[in-house]
């Protein structure tokens, strides 16, 4: 969820502002966050049941101190990273093959289009029945979610490679292999990285839902458990942790994207 939320900022963010502009933005961001916490505090004082920020911080501290939060984070991160890695590792070659060979495209497209219309969460019941309630079904749906997003962007990246660049490589003596490795792959990197970021967001969203249904550990499980006991501070701790982790992972990918695609002309 968190990963997707920051996506639309990409274009604006890459139109780089001066250092002064950057600092101004940072100050505004901090002011905004502090303001949000203030509003939350006010709300907690007036509305029943909403825990105050200090209460949530205290619970967070408790959960950290007894190791619960670390364990949950570790369990969740392991799932999401494994699923995301498997999903994108499959998506990139499949997307490339679909873009490069029309036969592969014709064969793969019906399945990809079909599964894209099914929310990965709807696969969970089936996955649990087929794969049991261990880690496998969870990682599977997470991988599926990442795969479906990423495969489309890898495919689009290959299809959109400028014909002139391919021709330029051909007249410079490049064969299919060289064209693929030295033109198609770099030219489609921006697409793939955007796809990976969206894929990460959707992995993350799927993770929490998968844990809500069947898990013994993990952030989603912890919140589900807390719900039974009306333990709102724990739910808040879970939500905030998920948000922060998602944001950090998204930023890491964004950083990689900037590094790897700095050659792009900015429109």
């Amino acid at each position, binding site marked *: 969820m968190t990963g997707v939320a920051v996506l639309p900022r990409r274009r604006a963010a890459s139109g780089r502002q001066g250092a002064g502009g950057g600092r101004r933005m940072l100050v505004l961001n901090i002011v905004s966050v502090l303001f949000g916490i203030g509003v939350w505090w006010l709300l907690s004082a007036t509305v029943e049941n909403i825990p105050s920020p200090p209460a949530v911080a205290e619970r967070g501290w408790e959960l950290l101190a007894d190791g619960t939060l670390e364990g949950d984070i570790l369990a969740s991160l392991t799932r999401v990273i494994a699923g995301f890695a498997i999903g994108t590792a499959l998506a990139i070659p499949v997307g490339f093959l679909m873009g490069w060979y029309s036969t592969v495209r014709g064969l793969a497209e019906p399945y990809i289009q079909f599964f894209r219309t099914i929310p990965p969460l709807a696969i969970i019941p089936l996955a649990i029945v087929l794969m049991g309630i261990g880690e496998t079904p969870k990682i599977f749906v997470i991988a599926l979610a990442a795969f479906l997003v990423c495969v489309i962007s890898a495919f689009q990246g290959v299809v959109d490679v400028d014909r002139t*660049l391919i021709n330029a*490589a*051909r*007249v410079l003596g490049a064969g299919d292999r060289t064209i693929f490795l*030295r033109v198609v792959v*770099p030219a489609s990197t921006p697409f793939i990285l955007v796809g990976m970021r969206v894929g990460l967001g959707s992995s993350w969203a799927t993770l929490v839902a998968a844990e809500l249904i069947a898990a013994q550990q993990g952030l989603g499980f912890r919140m589900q458990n807390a719900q039974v006991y009306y333990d709102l501070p724990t739910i808040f701790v879970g939500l905030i942790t998920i948000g922060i982790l998602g944001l950090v992972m998204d930023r890491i990918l964004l950083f990689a994207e900037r590094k790897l695609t700095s*050659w*792009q002309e900015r429109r």
Partner: protein
Amino acid sequence: MTPDRPTASTEGAPPKISVDAVSKVFPVKDGEFVALDRVSLDIAENEFVTVVGPSGCGKSTLLNVLAGLEEPSGGRATVDGVEVDGPGPERGVIFQQYALFPWLTVRKNVEFGLRTAGVPARERAERADHFIRLVGLEQFADALPKTLSGGMKQRCAIARAYAVDPSILLMDEPFGALDALTRVRLQEQLLETWSQDRRTVVFITHDVDEAVFLANRVVVMAARPGRIQEVVDVDLPYPRTEDVRLSPEFGELRNRVWHAVYHQSTSLAQPSTTTA
């Protein structure tokens, strides 16, 4: 309709490039589009031929056939007596849109063709440096294309084509997107290198002045269907200086070519598509 087969000005010698009744037909929604209709043309070694004509008359299509990027629907194109079948290292191509690899620096772009040819790294670097210096981009050797101006990008593309040492240069409106001054500079630079290494050049342009200024021969094409309308010999001395550009002879030739380009649009007869 089709003019007599224009021959190269150098009599006797076998042509470097020979275009023999080349046609190119593109399938379109409601039938076929004849982009080239039995075009024939011989180009001698070391000749500088320019091709002018209205937009859509098939200039790029003809060049792509010579480059081996487009297969003719009929007829054949030969280079050194061998039928063109795909691109080859003896034919360098410079595209209108520069077509630099945006993720590679100037140097890496220039080295691209040398890498595919398997030239070892050290020699590659030396040759790249040489051609980067030739086009005056030595200060930008490690810059990415996005930081270059249009003229610099085109110079980089020229260096990239030169680096593989082709005996033929195929240039598709290479200076079309540049301002007048940059264009004149690059024209003069191109002629200077050409007069030294004497490659065979086929140069497409929209610009009648440019066509006459550069060429031994100007090929005027007409559209619908794409064909050769007229071939004008340019007997102006090289090096072509500003004096040549301002001379009455130049003006006369320019008028002739202009007339051939312009006049045809009033004598448009054939429809562009024929229903299959």
